[in-house]
């Protein structure tokens, strides 16, 4: 098997953490391979380990055991700074509560990562305008997040995640705070972007709509993959 065709490879991934003094086995040996350009969803009930798995994959959390390769790079071999730079350059994040920086405008929020990357002003401006057009927020660059609707904020979050062209987008319950119409619109948009840009999308969700739209649904239960269904 060609390892280069995978964005994510996990091997016997395990993670325990303590909650109120009780040890919780959040992830209990997950073996997962996500191919490039996939549009996949990790589903499962609350406490099944979805968010923990996403945190491990993105390098936000360190596994107790097992290995993770992202774009063929072993995360455990990276230093804190390398990991931080790797996330900046290769992963886009979309969160449930949008988590835009409230004191920055739409444009500043989107270009934040590019500023960290040291992208030229002209280039940043061009990319921001392009991505705003893609997510349907043209002309809103000077607005602050608090003046936007939930759907618009999530569009900004999607734009922020995608603007620097990462190979992987990790979305943790991205539609949880949105109504079904807005969720549907956003999912269609993300699927279109997945097809046009080739970026890999991995969701963690309860949302049936995402499960329907996803081409692959991985079901987690008690920290283990219970089912891995690839649709035609």
């Amino acid at each position, binding site marked *: 098997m060609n390892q280069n065709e995978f964005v994510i490879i996990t091997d016997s991934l395990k993670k325990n953490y303590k909650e109120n003094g009780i040890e919780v086995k959040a992830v209990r040996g997950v073996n997962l391979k996500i191919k490039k350009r996939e549009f996949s969803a990790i589903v499962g009930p609350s406490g099944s380990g979805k968010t923990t798995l996403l945190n491990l994959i*993105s390098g936000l959390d360190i596994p107790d055991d097992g290995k993770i390769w992202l774009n063929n790079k072993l995360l455990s071999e990276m230093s804190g700074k390398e990991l931080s730079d790797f996330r*900046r350059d290769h992963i886009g994040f979309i969160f449930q509560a949008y988590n835009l920086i409230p004191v920055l405008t739409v444009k500043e929020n989107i270009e934040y*990562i590019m500023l960290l990357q040291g992208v030229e002003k002209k280039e940043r401006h061009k990319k921001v305008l392009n991505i705003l057009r893609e997510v349907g927020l043209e002309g809103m660059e000077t607005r602050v997040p608090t003046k936007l609707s939930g759907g618009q904020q999530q569009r900004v979050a999607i734009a922020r995640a995608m603007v620097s062209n990462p190979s992987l987008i990790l979305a943790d319950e991205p539609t949880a705070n949105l109504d079904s119409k807005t969720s549907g619109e956003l999912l269609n948009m993300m699927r279109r972007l997945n097809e046009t840009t080739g970026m890999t999308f991995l969701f963690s969700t309860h949302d049936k709509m995402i499960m329907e739209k996803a081409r692959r649904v991985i079901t987690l239960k008690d920290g283990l993959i219970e089912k891995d269904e690839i649709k035609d």
Partner: protein
Amino acid sequence: MKLLLKLAWRNIFRNKRRTIIAGIAIGIGLTSLIYVDALFVGMKVSIIKEATASFLGQGQIHRDGYRETQEVDKTINDIDKLVNKLKNDNRIDKFTLRTFSLGMVNSPSNVRPMMLVGIDSEEEKYLSRIDDAILKGSFFKGNNQRDIIIGKKFAEILEVGVGDRIVITVSQAKTEEFSQEMFKVSGIFYFNNPEFDKGIAFIRINKAQKMLNIGNRAHEIALKFKNIDKKNIDKLSFWKEYSQDGNEALSWMKLLPQLKIVFEMTNLSIFIIGLILFAVIALVIINSLFMSIFERMFEFGVLKAVGTGAFNIAKLIILESSSLAILSIGMGIIGGFILTYIYSKTGIDYTGIEMMGVTIQNILYPVIQIRQFITYPIIVFFLTSIIGIYPAIYAAKMSPSEAMRKSL
């Protein structure tokens, strides 16, 4: 950096009330520091003025060893040569000759030891404030050689008033024979200084010289310069030039060494006050920054998740702390200027208070100096920024997942 600066500046206004309260607290600290400094400078100026303008002068010349023994015999060497030299010295504004001798005074109802000072009534006016301190009578009007001026308390002890007669006895130089003369009280002064008011009497210098049998010689020359940097008076070459032929020339700083201690004490006081204020400021900043960090835990998690390095997170917090400092410094400078300016115009009444032998006789005016508005704000700025390091390290060390979990 520009983005972080923008972010930091906007972040501090996310909770306006907290920022304003913290800013005011730091601002009040800075205002107090500026005011206290101005007050101490005013106090210093006032003490120096009182010390030098009341009687001492900005400097004095004596014969070597006179100050230690105060023997009548120890008059200034080559006084004529010295007087001529001083007259031709363009650094000197005014100078006056004085004699001193211990003696006894007899009034109809009392006998007291006293210090008899012979002064040049014309020149003395420029060097001391005896003429301004006259309560009753006058300051050597006319040409009566038997005029004597005494302090208010001394007059009360002797139970005499203007026009009454008293007898002064002193011992003459070399022979140590008694010399006794009768004087008429022509003026009563009040210096608000017990040493002066209780035990000193002033007569004309030529009369004193005659009584002491010292010819035209004197024990002291008090002098005043034209334009000098009072702080660096000790560095003048003058003192060396005039400390010759068995005489010694000393500045007021050397003559009143206790004042140096007072000034050192005031500097120490400012330092201690500053330390206390800065400790309070430090707590305010740390509290404010930590509250702000804990409120934004998830946000820091997100910032880290999207690739903001620990160094940039730390930089952001320090910039927030510095932004708060700039805001507070603005308030502190305005407050400090207004408060100090008002008091520098109205003054503070400390008259009658004695410090290290110098009685403050005038209203004390805080002195505004540019230094106060540069040094202290710079200290506050750097201190505030440095204090930000602790919360900055805390935020930088946070694991992103933990930060996001903690805030939930």
